[in-house]
């Protein structure tokens, strides 16, 4: 199978998975609460629908007389939950039309798009950088095997993946922000209380971004490199036990040369697979980081929306998260196919 055909087929399967995720979400958060109250989801029962009730509650202001009818038209609230509203929900998810926020009364998709760069700045860093840190630490450990460095890398990576990322950020806030402030009157790193708002635009303000993101970056490196260091170390160790490395050594290659020219090409596909598998976890971690540190990305926005029962924003948050995760998986699928031609032979690749 050619690469382009593989990419198309994988794209279709990613879309199918995306739609099934939306269905699961819809069943859990819309149909299940209504059914628990005794509604028949196949008949139009507005009064038991959590979304409709939230919309009505938000329309107390007489200035918003047409509010309910407007949102009802967007979500098809006068129709039965299954299958009409589900279909409308999926269609809206593809067109990114989530109606209006029940608290700010502004378009949800514009609010989300305003905050998306903040999330991406955190998420992409948290996915990419720890891999490199873990990789080089594992190489260093593999070169110094049996020595102190090897032991230290193993122990520290164990500590790294025992501790959730948001716990790291709390520890960083305490030791690098609070203690220096109290002891010497300076912030080495900022505390979350004065995190920037979404009003920051322009190149000049990038340094504020970096400054407020630095605790989160450090925490994500500290928390995610351990998985990679341990994984790379074990996979390199297991490959070095193979017979082809013995051959390579016999041919006179140095240890580093064996690693570089013989082992590396072999372990790239499983590494990509591992990355694909870790994507949902890392996305969860970056969400937790945003909420703990009041970083104004989509997760913090959704966190506030959940406290205000702002259901359109919650829906949008889930749809955008699923999109981000699916897209990351799709990209890693394609990368795996490029690295390992065997994968293209069957449609079910490493990640599926």
């Amino acid at each position, binding site marked *: 199978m050619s690469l382009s055909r593989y990419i198309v087929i994988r794209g279709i399967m990613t879309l199918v998975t995306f739609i099934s995720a939306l269905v*699961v979400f819809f069943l859990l*958060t819309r149909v299940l609460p209504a059914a628990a109250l005794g509604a028949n989801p196949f008949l139009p029962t507005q009064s038991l629908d959590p979304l409709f009730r939230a919309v009505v509650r938000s329309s107390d202001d007489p200035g918003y007389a047409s509010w309910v009818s407007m949102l009802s038209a967007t979500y098809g609230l006068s129709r039965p939950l299954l299958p009409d509203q589900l279909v409308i929900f999926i269609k809206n998810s593809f067109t990114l039309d989530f109606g209006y926020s029940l608290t700010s009364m502004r378009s949800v998709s514009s609010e989300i798009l305003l905050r998306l760069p903040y999330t991406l700045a955190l998420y992409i860093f948290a996915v990419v950088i720890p891999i490199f840190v873990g990789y080089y630490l594992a190489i260093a450990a593999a070169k110094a095997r049996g020595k102190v460095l090897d032991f230290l890398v193993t122990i520290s990576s164990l500590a790294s993946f*025992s*501790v*959730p990322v948001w716990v790291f950020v709390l520890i960083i806030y305490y030791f690098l922000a609070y203690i220096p402030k109290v002891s010497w009157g300076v912030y080495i790193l900022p505390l979350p209380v004065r995190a920037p708002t979404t009003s920051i635009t322009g190149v000049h303000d990038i340094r504020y971004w970096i400054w407020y993101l630095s605790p989160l970056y450090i925490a994500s490196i500290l928390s995610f490199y351990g998985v990679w260091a341990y994984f790379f170390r074990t996979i390199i*160790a*297991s490959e070095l036990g193979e017979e082809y490395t013995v051959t390579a050594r016999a041919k006179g290659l140095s240890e580093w040369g064996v690693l570089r020219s013989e082992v590396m090409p072999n372990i790239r596909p499983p590494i990509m697979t591992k990355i694909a598998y870790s994507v949902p976890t890392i996305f969860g971690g970056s969400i*937790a980081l945003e909420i703990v540190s009041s970083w104004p990305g989509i997760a913090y926005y*959704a966190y506030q929306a*959940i406290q205000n029962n702002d259901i359109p924003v919650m829906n949008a948050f889930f749809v955008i998260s699923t999109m981000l995760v699916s897209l990351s998986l799709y990209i890693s699928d394609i990368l795996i196919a490029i690295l390992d031609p065997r994968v293209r032979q069957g449609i079910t690749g490493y990640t599926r």
Partner: protein
Amino acid sequence: MIPLATEGASWRSLGVKFYVGLSIVVFYAALGTYSMLAGYIGSFESMWEADYLAKPIWVAYIFEPGLPPTIIKRLEEWHVESSNEYITINSHDRYSLNISLKRPGSYVIASAGFEYLYKPARSMVIEYSMQVSSQYSVRYRVNLSIVSDNLLGRFVTVEYGGMKDNITAGRYAVLLAEETIEGGGFKIYNSSIRLPYPFLNRIQEPPIPVLVNPVSDLLLDRGTRIRGIINITYTCMDQSRCGGITLEVRSITVKILGLAHGFMGTDQKGSDIWRQFIEGARVANLFGLTAAATTVLIAISIGSISGFRVGRFSDQVLTFITDTMFFLPALPLIMIATAVLGRSMLVLYGLIVLVSWPGLARLARSWAMAIRGEPYIEAAIAVGAGRLWILRKHVIPRLAPLAIYGLVSLVPGVISTEVLIQFIGFGDPNIPSWGRMLNEAYNEGALINGAWWWLFAPITGITSYMAGFVLMGMALEERLNPKLTLSQRQFK
């Protein structure tokens, strides 16, 4: 991972990692059991066990010797100070006194004092129970004060808002009542008051500024004696019918809230963090193990069916469901669903099980596929054994090591999700988990007040508990994957 490696596995071959992990887990299980035996006290009932943000005892001992522990003293040996012959003592025991005062006038009743040997504490709780009764209609004035002997007659200079003020120290009135009772009537004074209580500062004679803390500024000092004094003055309303008044001191308790308390100090409400910590251990154990066990059950059954029927329609359907659930963003789903379905532990349990089974199910599927290809399964099929029989007799027992590994490796994820959901405030508010502790610590100012013992108690719990399971999981993984172990042996 190849299932064949489990043959001949012995406990000794599991290595140091496993036993270190196991001992951590057993330690927390013991703590949880202990907390269950000790019984849960709600956060409201356990308030003011010591002062707010009291340090742990060992920290106080090392860094700040002389911080007071919580002192609860029931004032004893009440006696009449002014020698007046018109007094009858009706009854008298160690903590209470019942006297009749025959003539109108002013009387002073005092208790024995107790030594206070520490640095000044910040606050105290006074609990008093007294009764005044009379056969005649009288007007009286009763005044309960706490007196510190060494400081009596001294002045304390207090600076507030750029002004200096000299304030009489050593005496602070906690009850000041001026009342009239009809003949045969009585009044009961039965209350508990926590000092500093700014309102009381204004009724002192002379009034003292509201910002002055009477406990640390006026009453407590190293080596002073604390006692209670009651002043009572009365006049008869009707001079022709004037026979006396009865004062009954039932019990007066002084509780000086300590600044050093317990193994882990106290939080903002003065409740013991150690107690919350062990209750958190119990919740972590119960929740983590139950949710992980349910997840393992679901994952192993779905994975083994899917792997055993590989390539068939049922396998394709199950694999599709597994993949969809695996790549569902778990945290957004849990956050939103707990908001919509209700913030209870049961909902959280269901959601965590729902999002965490697919990973293990995929592993179980590959194991079942490997087992299915073995000759004895083919032999069983050849002699006409039923599918369910083979699953039960051959496949499920071979998956037992995977189930144990799955249980151990799932607990950290389950616990960290539960704690995170509690931490960001979407969890069950009635469950005393480490996440709720962390939520309170973070949102009620542990960071700003420098109360590291409050912030780090749950963090220590979470991380060490998870590390225990991670260590066990790593040891089991090495044991289950012989290629890894073998190559590592060669590697070293």
